[in-house]
């Protein structure tokens, strides 16, 4: 009886963990075939057309899930990308069943409204349709773009930064829980890292990568002066605000 109860409990836990699992890309290599051709369906915008659309215009794109940030009350927030650029999908209508079907690479069609929230360009209130196709974007090395206007051209893309040095966030700490260290474990992590004498801020977004993920634990173990490589999504909030999904201490 005890074994049965334990087995059922473990099964229940497994269901929960699977449903809530994070899906940040494990690596940066594309898994699309060499001859991969991203043919857009009828009525679907190219990335350039999407960028050219006005805020509040209705937009339809076909894109590929790169990571899932959150699902809540039938709304999903996703990091997506095609071969030409990225699309941040915010609060799109999505059933829990469909959300579970979304894995890194899944092709989706999204119809929603282009929005801008404190500098972040996104598709709001979209409707998602799952389609056939798979593509995982390789990480773009954006180290040399840090601090330049060109970084904006890659907003929301999967990017990497290499050769960074962890800086003192304050009081000798390598990271903060919340932007001002007002949080506790489980909240967003903030850390500063420098390259070529300039310091930039990075975030581990706790909805995307919670305290049980490798990246969260890795950042909690960082020390001032550590040399790191990292990768993540180039989210925007009043400037670049990369959501880091992987940190490698060198």
């Amino acid at each position, binding site marked *: 009886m005890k074994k049965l109860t334990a087995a059922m409990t473990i099964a229940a*836990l497994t269901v929960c963990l699977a449903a809530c699992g994070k899906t940040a890309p494990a690596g940066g290599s594309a898994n699309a075939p060499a001859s991969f051709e991203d043919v857009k369906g009828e009525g679907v915008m190219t990335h350039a057309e999407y960028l050219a659309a006005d805020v509040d215009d209705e937009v339809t794109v076909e894109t590929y899930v790169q990571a899932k940030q959150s699902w*809540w009350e039938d709304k999903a927030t996703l990091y997506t990308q095609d071969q030409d650029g990225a699309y941040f999908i915010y609060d799109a209508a999505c059933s829990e069943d469909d959300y579970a079907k979304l894995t890194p690479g899944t092709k989706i069609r999204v119809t929603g409204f282009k929005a801008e*929230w404190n500098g972040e360009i996104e598709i709001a209130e979209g409707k998602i349709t799952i389609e056939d196709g798979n593509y995982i974007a390789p990480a773009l090395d954006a180290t040399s773009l840090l601090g330049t206007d060109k970084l904006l051209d890659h907003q929301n893309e999967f990017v990497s930064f290499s050769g960074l040095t962890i800086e003192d966030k304050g009081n000798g700490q390598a990271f903060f829980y919340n932007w001002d260290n*007002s949080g506790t474990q489980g909240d967003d992590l903030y850390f500063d890292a420098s390259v070529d004498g300039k310091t930039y801020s990075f975030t581990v977004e706790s909805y995307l990568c919670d305290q049980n993920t490798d990246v969260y634990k890795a950042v909690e173990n960082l020390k001032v002066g550590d040399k790191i490589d990292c990768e993540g999504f180039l989210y925007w909030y009043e400037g670049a605000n990369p959501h880091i999904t992987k940190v490698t201490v060198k």
Partner: protein
Amino acid sequence: MKRLHLRRGAAALACLLLLPLLASCHGSRMSDSFTMPEGIRPDRNYEITFWAKNDTNKTQTDIYHQAIRDFEAYYPNIHVNLRLYTDYGKIYNDVITNIQTNTTPNVCITYPDHIATYLTGAGTVAPLGELADDPVWGLGGSEVKFDAPTKEEIIPEYLGECMIGGELYALPYMRSSEACYVNRTMVEKLGFTLPDVLTWDFVWEVSDKAAQTLGSDGVYAANGQRVLIPFIYKSTDNMMIQYLKQADAPYSTDAGDILLFNDDTKVFLQEIATHVGNGAFSTFKISGYPANFLNAGQCIFAVDSTAGATWMGSDAPLVDISPDNLVDFETAVYPVPQLDPAHPRMISQGPSICVFNKADPEEVVASWLFAQYLLSDDVQIAYAETEGYVPVTSSARENSAYRDYLSRAGEDNKVHYAVKLAATELVLAHTSDTFVTPVFNGSSSLRDAAGNLIESTVKSVRRRQTVDDAYYAKLWQDTRSLYRLDDTLHAGADGSDLSDIPLPGLSRGLLLVLAAIWAGILVRLVIMRLQAGK
């Protein structure tokens, strides 16, 4: 920066919630009604949990930690475990989930609207009337070891806000209101002079004129930039609620009758729609934090809580935008726009303290003592100084340290930041002009619905959809459905079951998992019995 409207990743939470759910499935669901015990015993240890909300503000969390240390020095046998939140909605959801498993905290920071929902679980929340009046353990009672306020020293309006169904179910902790933070420099550049009292007509007129300065080159002459949203409102639920109050229009009754969907509401939405069409207005949910636009010279009227004052203005101590985007201007702080300048009305808001009932009444008294400590002058003054909050006791307000704080506005751009002190003075001066909406099970949903009417209208206009009578009829219908608003949502201070509580989806899922587990166990037992019979 994370958007603070309700959403969450569920991985860690699911596991945290599932474990107590499984562990406590044999336990009683609710405590019985609270009965006042003799008190706490000095030879016994008590452990209580405190779920506290802060504004993502390190100073505030430091004050909570300090308060706990100081309280434990008075009562070494009471240990307080702190859990920090930055979102009222998340506290609400976690409390609802933990009511099911009888694992609520002992004390939490919350809103009366939320307490009304907690109360639908009989005996869940400790009634505080008897505790407050107890001559020994009550407010300022003989066995209270610290200098606690008396009941009379709590500002009556604020204490009244914590009465639900005729019983005291909370203590006010901090109070604030909303303020309109104005770029006076740009208003005057547009040829206007700020009046003594800001009216809706004035705000719309200036906003429209600013929007009209958009040139063919895409640059607004008003600010010389490509971005200008003259009027941005942070909390559109408050925007609607305050307008209706000012218009003496219906919203709801104390009994939970839903009156929001009326002609006055429609008139206000039509006015908003007109100005959105002019490019004069947007909201936090649609465009972003008002403070960011205000500080970049891209907004003239930014309405936000007085508890957000430290983010407002050219010299704000807290800033989220790049320093090179900051614009130098004079900030004026006003009450929210009014319909009748002679009779200003504004919302009273701010956190309250809720004490949960427990099977052990001594534990409730220990919790009550800690709740009471949060009203002591030291805590009240320290916390109020972190933002545009005001203390909820006359003793703290009259304390010389607090009077000194108020008298030093503008001495520096940190503790004595002028805009923050102006916001604080605004709340102090208008205490009698504030109001709250009726609290009942469902009042929180009604509030959300009020905001949604504005958000939907603004989005529809921006998206060039037709906004006419048919649109509003459909909006009424959709909003009622979305927020599950019948004409009456009768409440529940004395409700007897939890069946009306809209459980979070995650909780519903977890309860289904639990049911499936037990169903599996029962099936297996039946099979084993049948096999044994053979």
